[in-house]
């Protein structure tokens, strides 16, 4: 038995006779998306209990580095995906907006948990009713808080979304900023999506 397997039809040797090991052909989109989707550097914006689950996702058991995301980017300048983990009070609204503006393209956003996505149980004077009234969101992860598996599923959905993008489509990278008065959506849309729901329906605005 030699160390070199015998050459034959369909064997490894045939491969190297027809394909050079020094170059491959591929679609540029595939290559760019493959690189982007597998090295998403997260900007962790953890404000509440979702951040605890986010930390669990990053730790050894769930190990977010399997997705090339272990490098937390605490500077928005080097971040690819903003993960808003937790509720966002109005006082933080200009902060998350500035962080989003400071992130270079291409960039994506994950809204983690019920509060970041809708305001959750905090239907109050102090809470943003969903961060999508302030920045564009690519993936919403439901849960209160979501388990690490949930966040990982959201990450995989985002990767799938990125793999479907094309670098020749400049419209994907347009900064969708906003109304001239600073809002991300039209005022009537914001009012509509932040209508009371669930238990807060029975609460009037004056009591």
């Amino acid at each position, binding site marked *: 038995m030699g160390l070199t397997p015998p050459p034959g039809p369909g064997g490894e040797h045939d491969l190297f006779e027809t394909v050079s090991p020094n170059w491959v052909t591929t679609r540029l989109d595939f290559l760019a998306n493959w690189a982007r989707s597998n090295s998403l550097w997260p900007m962790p914006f953890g404000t509440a209990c979702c951040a605890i689950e986010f930390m669990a996702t990053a730790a050894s058991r769930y190990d977010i580095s399997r997705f090339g995301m272990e490098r937390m980017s605490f500077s928005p300048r080097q971040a690819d995906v903003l993960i808003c983990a937790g509720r966002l009070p109005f006082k933080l609204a200009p902060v998350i907006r500035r962080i989003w503006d400071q992130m270079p393209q291409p960039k994506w956003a994950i809204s983690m948990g019920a509060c970041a996505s809708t305001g959750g149980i905090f*239907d109050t004077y102090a809470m943003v009713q969903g961060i999508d009234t302030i920045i564009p969101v690519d993936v919403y992860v439901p849960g209160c808080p979501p388990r690490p598996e949930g966040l990982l599923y959201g990450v995989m959905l985002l990767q799938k979304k990125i793999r479907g993008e094309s670098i020749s489509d400049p419209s994907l990278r347009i900064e969708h900023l906003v109304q001239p008065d600073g809002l991300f959506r039209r*005022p009537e849309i914001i*009012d509509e999506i932040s209508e*009371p729901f669930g238990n807060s329906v029975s609460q009037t605005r004056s*009591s």
Partner: protein
Amino acid sequence: MTEGRNGMAATALAAAHETAGAMAEQFGAAVLRTHESNGQVMVEVAADRAKAILRWLREDASQDFDYLTDVTAVEYRDPERAFEVVYQLRALARRVDLRVKVLLDPEGALQVETVTDIWAGAEWLEREVWDMFGVRFKGHADLRRILMWQTYDEGHPLRKSFPLRGHRSRSEQTRQALDANPEAHYTLEELSIAEAYHELPEEMRRRLVESGRRAAE
């Protein structure tokens, strides 16, 4: 073990009752009512003597309430006693807690005197009461909002008259929140610890100087 703890609690409670008695003796009619609830002794005092009573509680050698745990306020749906400002005191060495309540005149201005000159830690607590309830603290050096942002103009959120979702529409609230500049209301001096420099420990001062030198290079 349990008995020992209960014994300690009973001693602390007795000491708090003793304090309440001493207060009544010292200040007479200014001490309106004393009662005990859930292992907590509460003393209601008249608004005009509140500052003097609190100062006495802090400075009298036999009382020595040296730790102000909390300052907060309560609004009742009761026209006769609409507002209370609550001081939660603790004497660390004696392990005694005391709750002092100041009834505010519902007709008059919602105002009490500051206690920042008695307990320096009252500064932010009083700012929070101002922010949430709109109670003014006369003599407070820096009475401005602390939880809500500086330009917030919908009122004081914990008042009974304040709707839970706020006065304005969501879009208007979002717009105003985005307009607020979080850095606009702090001076460089406030952001640095320059003023407290000489009160810092020697070792920390040395490190600050070194890091400053490194930054300059």
